[in-house]
């Protein structure tokens, strides 16, 4: 591989990197994406799964809001199988007053976001679970997006357009020749050359850049979230007030996700992100204000991700941060040609970030290819889903994978292995083939296996056997089970009481062979 020189190397397999590798590939550039872990392993897989309408930013960040609504409309079209068109409500509680709402509606409309005030009674009819004390509600075009499927779809499309994806391989340093970045050195000891190197590694970008002599002031901001066992509302529920903790509840597939918090954390902690009991308490307390029945709804797990916020002035005190898109041309900024950073932004605006980065890459490489990502549907959203004679077992799979189900063998693999999330054997075979999964944690990201209410208590042994068989080494099933349970345990620890504790005890006994 080291003999080949790529046009572009992208470092980081989150949504930004995935969108960028797709854009580059569609524009005919020879591209390699390097990811130290699995695709969607970092912040891209640890968020709300909210496709912002931009309404949340309308009051404070007009530009961000406009980007969101534009990208929101594009993703509904090109990633129809990843997006569920739930729509969203911004509700006002008595303590919020209605002044904010009036300004909110005005600002939304200025940014081009439809915002329709709804009578509180009508809002309660639409969403009976929300706080009955609401004094106002506004309907906006928020939606739910499956971040794992979205990132997978970008990766698949990139590969199908000739890009290479190198996973489980870290970039240890940027290789410089005569002041120019000419490639990367990997954890496997290879040096891979490219005409442009793009850093898209979220919060981990700063460290890589620094080693190459570039200072990017990044401020990791931790956000914790809780997953509840089922859907309590059909729409995205937001609080209509100045953005604060725990004021968004998103219906994600068959669960509800409540978040988030926002706390500055040291960079060193970013590799081991988990929610703390204090964060969980805070989320629960605030979440009950939004939807009171959350107090009685079973929590499955809690998790945390880290936002790659960029400090505009590295010398400053960190207050002057931007949540917007940051594209850095290190040739003009720092006098280091061959290196570009794309960071900041949001899950919703990743496609736009990729477009901006790829425009710059093309300019550097002298290519005149134009961006097509806004018009070409992603794999899974390409036309009509094939019809099945008896689709019941596959219905959830069809919902997740859209047209990609035509690549799955339901005749052989129609059996449902994960009962909570209705994941079929065929999807395991597909994930092994398409995404090179190594273990059940990888499999989870590409299939939702074990993400449901039982957290693997019932299915993991079956899944482990199936995976080992697909990988051609049946002796590894036990190792898969151990690894996965350890990982699930991490997410259950901060919420270990009541029903979750009971379930964890049960899981423990099942795997200790005590029942």
């Amino acid at each position, binding site marked *: 591989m080291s003999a080949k020189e790529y046009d572009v190397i992208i470092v980081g397999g989150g949504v930004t990197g995935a969108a960028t590798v797709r854009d580059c590939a569609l524009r005919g550039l020879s591209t390699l994406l390097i990811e130290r872990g699995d695709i969607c392993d970092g912040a891209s897989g640890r968020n709300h799964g909210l496709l912002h309408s931009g309404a949340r930013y309308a009051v404070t960040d007009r530009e961000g809001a406009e980007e969101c609504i534009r990208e929101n409309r594009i993703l509904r079209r090109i990633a129809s199988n990843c997006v569920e068109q739930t729509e969203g409500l911004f509700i006002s509680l008595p303590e919020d007053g209605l002044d904010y709402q009036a300004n909110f509606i005005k600002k939304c409309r200025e940014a081009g976001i439809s915002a329709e005030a709804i009578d509180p009674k009508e809002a309660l009819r639409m969403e009976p679970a929300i706080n009955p004390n609401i004094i106002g509600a506004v309907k906006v075009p928020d939606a739910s997006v499956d971040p794992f499927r979205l990132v997978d779809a970008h990766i698949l499309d990139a590969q199908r357009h000739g890009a290479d994806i190198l996973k489980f391989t870290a970039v240890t340093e940027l290789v410089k020749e005569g002041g120019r970045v000419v490639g990367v050195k990997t954890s496997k000891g290879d040096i891979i050359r490219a005409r442009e190197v793009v850093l898209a590694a979220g919060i981990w970008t700063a460290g890589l850049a620094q080693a190459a002599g570039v200072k990017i002031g990044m401020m990791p901001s931790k956000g914790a979230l809780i997953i509840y*066992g*089922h*859907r309590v509302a059909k729409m995205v529920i937001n609080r209509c007030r100045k953005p604060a903790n725990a004021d968004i509840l998103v*219906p994600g*597939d*068959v*669960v509800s996700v409540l978040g988030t918090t926002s706390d500055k954390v040291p960079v060193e902690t970013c590799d081991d992100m988990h929610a703390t009991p204090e964060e969980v308490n805070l989320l629960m307390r605030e979440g009950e204000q939004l939807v009171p029945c959350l107090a009685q709804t079973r929590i499955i797990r809690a998790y945390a991700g880290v936002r790659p916020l960029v400090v505009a002035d590295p010398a400053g005190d960190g207050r002057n941060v931007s949540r917007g898109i940051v594209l850095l041309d290190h040739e003009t900024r720092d006098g280091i040609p061959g290196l570009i950073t794309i960071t900041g932004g949001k899950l919703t605006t990743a496609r736009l970030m990729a477009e901006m980065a790829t425009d710059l890459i093309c300019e550097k490489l002298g290519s005149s290819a134009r961006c097509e990502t806004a018009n070409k549907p992603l794999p899974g959203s390409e036309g009509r889903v094939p019809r099945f004679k008896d689709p*019941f077992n596959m*219905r*959830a799979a069809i*919902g997740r994978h859209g047209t990609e189900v035509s690549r799955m063998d339901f005749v052989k693999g129609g059996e*449902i292995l994960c*009962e*909570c999330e*209705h994941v079929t054997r065929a999807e395991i075979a597909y994930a092994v083939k398409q995404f090179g999964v190594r273990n059940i944690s990888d499999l989870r990201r590409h299939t939702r296996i074990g993400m*449901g*209410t039982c957290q693997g208590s019932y299915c993991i042994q079956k899944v482990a056997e199936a995976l080992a068989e697909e990988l051609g080494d049946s002796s590894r099933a036990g190792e898969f089970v151990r690894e996965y349970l350890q990982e699930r345990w991490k997410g259950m620890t901060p919420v270990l009481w009541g029903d979750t504790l*009971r379930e964890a005890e049960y899981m423990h006994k099942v795997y200790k062979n005590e029942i």
Partner: protein
Amino acid sequence: MMEVNPDYPGPKKAGPDGERYRLKDPAFFDYALKYCLNCKRCEVACPSDVHIGDMIQSARIKYGSQAKVKGLRGVRDWALASTDLVGSLASPVAPVVNEVLQLKPVKSVMHGMLGVDKHRTFPEYASKKFVSWFLKQDQSAFDKFVTYFHGCYVNYNYPKQGQDFVKIMNAAGYGVHLLEKEKCCGVALMSNGFAAKARKQGALNLNSIRKAVAAGEPVLTTSSTCTFTMRDEYPDVLGLENADVRDNIMLATKWLYEKLSSGEIKLKFRKDFKMKVVYHTACHMQKMGWQLYSIELLRMIPGVTLTVLDQNCCGIAGTFGFKKENYGYTQKIGSKLFEDICTSNPEYVSTDCETCKWQIEMSTGVPVLNPIEILAAAIEA
């Protein structure tokens, strides 16, 4: 059901697992949910007290309406569900109806066109309804009363069971009242997709029950399914609040056992009574946990030799078993029970459920009696 029909997804998938998806999108409703017998054995088995059966019933009501059966099968389902209407029409011409329903050509037409299985025989209609008989009974001599919810089967098909109930109550020193108004409890309506009508009838029944309870009378029944429906399915599936009267709705066997064992009432038993009986626990009886009352009551009767059978479903599940498409499943599900009955070779089977009775009589040839009938036969009038 799962054991005999691989199309049925089973209680976990049909219930809580499926519900999570139905909350996302009603398109996830699986028509195979029609195979749920509503036996509630899943709820008995669940250590976490999840109301799995209620969840499935509610899903059928909420999402299954679009699947309402059309054409002649729809007429059949409607007729099977409309116990009051069909009973009222059949009673005056009972001998003719009974004859006609047994004729081979009629059976094969019903089997072929309506989808009522040819193996089934409808319970005979009585020429004189229980209520007509009861209204001629003078209960004015008593100073203590119980109220009787007789149900459709006693009223239209089998008044003897109601008469036996009145005989026992009178012998125990209690007069009998009927509810001011009584309609079918609604179980057949619910399982055939007529929830709105079931809710209306349930509200009417509860209204009458409240009046009886306010007069200080318990509302006693002789059918485990009617009892279970009014106590548990009214609030859990139909959303009819009944907490104020629920404790006062009970099977006569429970009431009798409690009163007899505390010495509050006394019955004089015949000395020459002899009967070899096996007791079958109906599914809804097991869900209520009340089989113990019926069993212990039977054990109080001198001369009864009682064997309690292992708990197995008979398979019929009410009107479900009358449908041609279900016949095969019902017989497979019940086979273990039928085998147990045949090996124990009793004179009679006793059970608190009338549809179990039809199924057991048809499948084993052994006559089935309600515990109330046995008790009535064993006491001196």
